[in-house]
């Protein structure tokens, strides 16, 4: 297992609030939730768009409908159950990844290049747009890569911060992407812009911003909680099956 992947999952895991209901995407988001559930936030309840509710995967799933997601869950609902809870405002935290995220918290999972003549056609929204619009807040889990943490996304699949986010929709504040975790640090939303507000324990601001046009929120930044020494040995199995 690549250490950076464990560090990324850990940094994201530090942003979970124990007891919350989380709507989890496949890949880094699922790993982050699985690490959080085993460490800092043992009482989170994971919902997958397949309808599997109060899930507790033991291995990184490739599909939200995978056997890893289904096994050990409290309920196999259907997809409408999952999105109904999301639209009601019952999901505290949506956890997403994307091909690109920009400083305004907009996510792109649709194209590289222009929409009509893309260099690469990506898989599209899936449930990501729905989660970004309807969850109370969203955490983005994203490997540090200047191509993926950009000034402006090619295409806004999932809207970030915009006018109106400060007003309740259906009686619920739905703030959209409020934080981006990388393996080097944490960006949080301040006045509509994602700025670096914490660095990986032992890391530097320069590392966390390397190659990016993004900026730090202040001159002295907090460190995220240190990666537990035994995370890989205790939970290495979680990461098997993923990339």
């Amino acid at each position, binding site marked *: 297992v690549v250490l950076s992947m464990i560090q990324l999952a850990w940094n994201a895991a530090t942003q979970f609030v124990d007891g919350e209901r989380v709507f989890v995407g496949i890949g880094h988001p699922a790993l982050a939730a699985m690490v959080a559930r085993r460490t800092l936030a043992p009482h989170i309840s994971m919902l997958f768009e397949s309808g599997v509710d109060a899930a507790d995967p033991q291995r990184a799933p*490739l599909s939200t409908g995978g056997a890893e997601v289904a096994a050990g869950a409290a309920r196999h609902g259907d*997809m*409408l159950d999952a999105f109904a809870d999301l639209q009601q405002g019952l999901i505290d935290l949506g956890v997403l990844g994307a091909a690109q995220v920009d400083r305004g918290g907009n996510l792109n999972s649709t194209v590289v290049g222009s929409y009509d003549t893309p260099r690469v*056609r*990506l*898989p599209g*929204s*899936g449930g990501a747009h729905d989660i970004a619009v309807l969850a109370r807040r969203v955490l983005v889990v994203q490997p540090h890569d200047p191509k993926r943490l950009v000034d402006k996304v090619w295409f806004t699949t999932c809207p970030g911060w915009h006018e109106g986010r400060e007003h309740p929709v259906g009686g619920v504040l739905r703030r959209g992407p409020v934080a981006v975790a990388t393996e080097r640090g944490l960006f949080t939303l301040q006045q509509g812009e994602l700025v670096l507000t914490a660095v990986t324990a032992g890391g530097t601001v320069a590392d966390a911003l390397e190659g990016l046009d993004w900026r730090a929120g202040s001159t002295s930044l907090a460190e995220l909680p240190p990666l537990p020494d035994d995370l890989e040995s205790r939970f290495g199995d979680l990461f098997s099956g993923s990339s």
Partner: protein
Amino acid sequence: VTSDWAPSNKVMSLTEAVSGSVRSGDTIFIGGFGHCIPFALARAIVRSDIRHLTVCKTGADIVLDLLVASGSVDEIVVGWFGNPGLGISHVISRALSVGQLRLSESTNFAVLLRLHAARLGVPFLPTRTIAPGNLRDRTRDVETVTCPFTGEELTAVPALVPDVALIHAQRADRDGNVQMWGVTGDTVIGAEASRRVICTVEEIVESTTIRTNPDRTILAGHRVNAIVAATRGAVPSYVEGHYPRDDAFYQQFQTHSKDASWVDEFVARIRRNEEDAAWSSA
């Protein structure tokens, strides 16, 4: 067998089921979600002369790649397409780039609500998803609607009525009562939205087995047109209680489908009924 519920017999062969219920130009819904993907039915369509299909699905699987690669699909209506957990669809990307295929994309929830509207028998449903922006601009069939009770503005999505749903499940009886457990995803919603339903199953069981466990029934027989016995009919996806997902095959497909000639040969093998070869070759 004697019974007092006048059993019918909906059991038929794969070829009979497909030729009897799927027509060129139809809109088809694909059941399964990671689990129980109806690959045997998709292969039967590949082997048929059915063309000009519209295929709808919330989040698709490589079963969609197979149908598109065979040239039987004109349009896909989806929230997501690709190889779950592994990446982009090379097959669909190529088909889109050469204009062989039309794409109608929105989100998984939006496609689901369109099917649910059809299932409820109403022309549209209001929702809070599909926010203004790039995606909404590119989403056909989306309007703004004002709630007549609160005055609130919502998004409206129109009903999507598939002509036929293709699904795979663990078991059914001859009456067409279908039982499926584990992950169902959008399967029941899409099937109940559709005019006709074809279902392959791992096993056909006696009605008493169904009727002693009716909580496992996802579709009653009156909604199902054809039942086909198709053991391992969801391979390379998985069926709870029967076989695991062939993750290695999905990986191989992701690597090799970059090569259009490999995909052509893959489709040709299915047409030649060399299924074992097609589903294990690297």
